[in-house]
């Protein structure tokens, strides 16, 4: 019996579920709407140009929007990735379903799922930080970011997806048909190749399509690894040209959207063109999705197999095999079959080993370098930084320690001061800050003359001039002039401008300045000791104000100080320069045979010998890494704001996605009839699942940012991500609700409960653990995504602004910070442990959530089985 309440509830559920359709229609609609200016203003010529021209010059006058090279870029990386990923994926799936023992398979399967969840930005980070230098230095590519790099990384990323789906398809074939084949005397290879694979071909095809979709829709990896130059071989249809192009940079459709939006003003043709690229991606993935639906549906009714031409074709193709078998003879055939079987088994095991090896190669270095962000030998500089920035640590002790270190550093600073006539610009800077108001300019000019004097005579003249200013003896500039005079009067001032013997392109002054910079610091690069006096340096950026936080960084600086990079020209017999080679030489050698050689040598030796006294390294566990905010470029400090931002945005997005997700799932399981509307709804959900994440970013920009919030902010990012994780939530919730035994419902209905009350009181609570799995998976997916946040939410650095409305502030997140640190910042280069630490944290964050979800699901499955 249907009550009014149930009727209203049904209507409510149905309408809510239809919101999902509305979302999909809105995505298509708005992307199309924003593409219209591009598609309509230029007439057919512009559209023809888009599909035929290779020139992508949006800033030229008039702008040229040829997308051909972008298509080529997307296709090239995808095709090469699939060439690797498809065979490895399918063979691994076979190894898992038919070769490894059952217990091993039970471990491998969730493991593969975990690997599929690793955020793509982590792979991009790996590509740019580890693969690119490797390709460039060891394999001699002109640039490390190219088709090959992107394809390899995409392949590693796509394999888990392919394995996961293909394994389901292959093991879904069941044991009976395998037994039939074995009982007829087939080997394992024959059983798999001739029976299992043909029988599961639709599932395998779906796996391949899914993998392709993941590769073509991927943004971060290709943006970071493919080089971003719109290249395309002239003869793109020739295989050899394409293979030669492996070392070239390309630009994919997704990367173009990601990279260009920032430069395309809001209502420009350029931006509209980017929306058109997004539209093409959307249409492409939609077509792929329809194809998958078609394939899986067709296999469901298993068409009869009586096409005559197909049989004839098979006959023709098997002729060489027939001849080969005939030539082998019966004994030869037996041998051949056995060898082939062994080879096939080996190959499959090789694939699965390769898969895990590749992923281990990606993950292990990230964690190995990342762990140093937390566990490391901490210098006194780090302790000082923590004390000053976060008021952490025992003030008295740290100050005392720092005083001891300063004591140890004194000789080094003194030597630097004594040698500083070589490059007196810091004297000039010091004086200009001290100069008295009235006579400031003249005095400073005189002081400058003093410093720039290149001979004893000039020095004397300049010094006399300063004496004439009639300053009293306590005047700071006067004292400074005296000090400088005393140092410089005995020095060989002409040395400054002379080129060094070893590297004629550098003067002695420049060579000395390098040493001084590395020791005391200059903006934008770090230093080994920091400025001689800390008081009054509060305004300096942290990389100048503080020395290295980690002992390893100090060691790196020390190496840079000890060894100078020198460009050595190589000449042929006639003295013509062929090429210059970079080589490392002992820096002291640069000053060989000059008056300062001994001083420089002593300076370097003292620095090396007493470095531990100057920095007092000590092993530490920096647990607050996960809570502290960082200085610019993550030079010092932790990842607190990013971690918090990631958690906030993920939680917020699941909060938005959950009600819609659960109601849609409930509608699909409990009330939806199997009619066209329901099928359409299902199609919409799978379409939503296949939409490339960058297109979600475009949609978020067009709708949420431009129409609702007005600027990128936490709310916009969370709403965008909510749409992205909606299919994940719907699918897991649907599974969970469906898994509730029918008897529960019957019991409730038998006791007189209506359908709504049955759902609320019985079905929903029973499905909660399963829904929780969906929540966790949704959070982990939202935490790892980068592309949708590029235009809707993310900022490179900075914490939350206190007191302001959190929801309407741009938010730092781990994923975007990982991208930003990998490509942007020179400072971040000096502290790789902070880069790797951040990426490792992101991976860990996502993996832990996934492990929780998998464990939870395993528990539910066990309970349903009655264990």
């Amino acid at each position, binding site marked *: 019996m249907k009550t009014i309440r149930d009727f209203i509830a049904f209507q409510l559920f149905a309408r809510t579920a239809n919101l999902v359709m509305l979302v999909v229609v809105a995505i298509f609609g708005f992307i199309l709407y924003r593409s219209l200016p591009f598609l309509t203003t230029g007439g057919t010529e512009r559209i023809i140009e888009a599909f035929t021209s290779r020139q992508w010059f949006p800033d030229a006058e008039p702008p040229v929007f040829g997308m051909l090279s972008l298509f080529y870029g997307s296709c090239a990386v995808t095709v090469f990735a699939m060439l690797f990923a498809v065979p490895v994926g399918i063979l691994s799936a076979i190894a898992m379903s038919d070769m490894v*023992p*059952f*217990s091993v398979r039970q471990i491998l399967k969730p493991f593969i799922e975990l690997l599929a969840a690793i955020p793509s930005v982590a792979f991009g980070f790996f590509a740019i930080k580890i693969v690119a230098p490797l390709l460039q230095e060891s394999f001699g590519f002109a640039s490390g970011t190219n088709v090959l790099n992107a394809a390899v990384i995409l392949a590693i990323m796509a394999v888990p997806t392919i394995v996961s789906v293909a394994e389901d398809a292959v093991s879904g074939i069941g*044991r*009976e*048909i*395998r*037994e*039939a*084949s*074995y*009982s*007829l*005397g*087939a*080997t394992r290879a*024959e059983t798999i190749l*001739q*029976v299992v694979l*043909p*029988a599961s071909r639709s599932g395998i095809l779906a796996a391949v399509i899914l993998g392709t979709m993941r590769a073509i829709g991927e943004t971060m990896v290709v943006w970071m690894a493919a080089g971003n130059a719109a290249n395309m071989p002239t003869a793109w249809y020739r295989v050899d040209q394409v293979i030669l192009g492996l070392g070239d940079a390309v630009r994919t459709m997704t990367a173009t959207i990601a990279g260009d939006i920032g430069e395309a003003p809001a209502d420009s043709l350029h931006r509209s063109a980017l929306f058109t690229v997004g539209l093409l991606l959307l249409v492409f993935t939609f077509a792929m999705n329809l194809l998958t639906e078609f394939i899986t549906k067709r296999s469901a009714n*298993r*068409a*009869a*197999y*009586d*096409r*005559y031409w197909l*049989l004839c074709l098979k*006959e023709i193709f*098997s002729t060489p*095999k*027939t001849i080969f*078998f*005939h030539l*082998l003879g*019966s004994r030869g*055939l*037996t041998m051949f*079959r*056995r060898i082939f079987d062994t080879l096939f088994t080996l190959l499959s095991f090789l694939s699965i080993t390769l898969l895990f090896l590749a992923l281990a190669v990606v993950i292990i270095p990230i964690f190995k370098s990342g762990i140093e962000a937390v566990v490391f030998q901490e210098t006194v500089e780090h302790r000082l930084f923590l004390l000053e920035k976060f008021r952490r640590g025992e003030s008295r002790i740290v100050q005392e320690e720092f005083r001891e270190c300063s004591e140890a550093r004194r000789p080094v600073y003194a030597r630097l001061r004594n040698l500083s006539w070589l490059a007196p610009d810091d004297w000039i800077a010091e004086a200009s800050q001290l100069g008295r108001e009235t006579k400031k300019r003249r005095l400073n000019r005189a002081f400058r003359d003093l410093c720039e004097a290149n001979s004893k005579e000039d020095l004397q003249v300049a010094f006399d001039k300063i004496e004439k200013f009639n300053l009293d003896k306590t005047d700071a500039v006067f004292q400074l002039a005296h000090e400088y005079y005393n140092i410089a009067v005995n020095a060989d001032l002409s040395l400054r401008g002379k080129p060094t013997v070893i590297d004629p392109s550098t003067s002695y002054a420049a060579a000395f300045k390098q040493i001084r910079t590395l020791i005391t610091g200059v903006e934008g690069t770090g230093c080994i000791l920091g400025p001689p006096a800390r008081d009054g340096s509060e305004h300096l950026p942290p990389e100048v104000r503080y020395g290295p936080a980690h002992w390893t960084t100090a060691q790196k600086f020390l190496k840079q100080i000890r060894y100078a990079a020198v460009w050595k020209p190589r000449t042929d017999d006639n003295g013509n320069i062929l090429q210059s080679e970079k080589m490392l030489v002992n820096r002291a050698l640069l000053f060989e045979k000059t008056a300062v050689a001994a001083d420089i040598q002593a300076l370097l030796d003292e620095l090396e010998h007493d470095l531990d006294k100057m920095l007092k390294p000590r092993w530490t566990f920096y647990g607050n890494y996960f809570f502290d905010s960082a200085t610019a470029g993550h030079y010092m400090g932790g990842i607190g704001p990013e971690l918090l931002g990631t958690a906030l945005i993920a939680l917020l997005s699941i909060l938005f996605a959950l009600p819609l997700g659960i109601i849609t799932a409930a509608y699909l399981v409990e009330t939806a009839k199997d009619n066209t509307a329901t099928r359409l709804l299902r199609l919409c959900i799978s379409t939503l699942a296949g939409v490339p994440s960058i297109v979600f970013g475009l949609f978020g920009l067009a709708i949420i940012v431009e129409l609702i919030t007005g600027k990128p902010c936490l709310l916009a990012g969370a709403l965008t991500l909510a749409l992205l994780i909606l299919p994940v939530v719907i699918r897991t919730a649907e599974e969970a609700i469906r898994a509730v035994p029918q008897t529960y419902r019957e019991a409730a209905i038998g006791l007189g409960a209506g359908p709504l009350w049955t759902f609320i009181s019985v079905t929903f609570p029973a499905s909660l653990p399963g829904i929780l799995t969906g929540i966790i998976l949704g959070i982990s997916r939202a935490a790892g995504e980068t592309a949708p946040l590029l235009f809707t939410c993310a900022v490179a650095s900075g914490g939350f602004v206190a007191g302001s409305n959190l929801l309407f502030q741009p938010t730092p997140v781990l994923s975007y910070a990982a991208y930003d640190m990998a490509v942007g910042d020179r400072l971040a280069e000096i502290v790789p442990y902070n880069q790797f630490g951040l990426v490792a944290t992101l991976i860990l964050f996502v993996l832990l959530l996934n492990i929780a979800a998998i464990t939870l699901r395993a528990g539910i499955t066990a309970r349903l089985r009655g264990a």
Partner: protein
Amino acid sequence: MTIIQADNFSLYYGSKLAVNRVSMDIDTGGVTAIIGPSGCGKSSFLRSINRMNDLIPNARAEGTLIVDGKNVYDKRIDLVMLRRHVGMVFQRPNPFPKSIFDNIAYGPRLQGIRNRSALNGIIESCLKSAALWDEVKDSLAKSALALSGGQQQRLCIARALATQPGVLLMDEPCSALDPIATGKIEELIVALKERYTIVIVTHNMQQAARISDRTAFFCLGELIEYDDTIKIFTTPSNPQTEAYITGRFG
């Protein structure tokens, strides 16, 4: 002449004992039926004869099981040759999702017979032996999955015959079929016993009585009694057999 000879043969699944020290000889020709209650190890024993149990995780065998003079569980045995000589028909019809022709040609093709006319000959004779020829001779290119259950099972028998086995193992071949299809399969078995040694596991005692020459009764993994069918069904020497035959348990 003995073709299958089990001597103290045991089979374990993990730690579970499925077949317990069975010793029995099966002679060439004729139908041997294995009966017994569910879970008594009759199927496990049958599937040991062509080592089909290898596909089950953690299966492990002890004792000897000799087929055609060779120990089946010998490490050096060629499984491909063994299974060629010992064909098998399963509980549920399991044709490949291929054409009828390709289903039967599967075995011969593996052995290198790829000549179309030779294959045609094999397929015709096998289908005739399986009493299916008249029903499918015009639609050999049709998917095997389009056949009815009984036809599918006869196709599976034809497919097993195509490798020219000496022994044919049948694991409850009629349990998934209706009475009419069952009748046809039974007729077929009786017709085939002239040329093949048939070992059939069945749940259906009447079936065993109708078609077999000798019957083995298994219970809880052990071989309780093994004798001529007539004797088993009329004057069993073991009280457990009698209890089972007369329907007091099982």
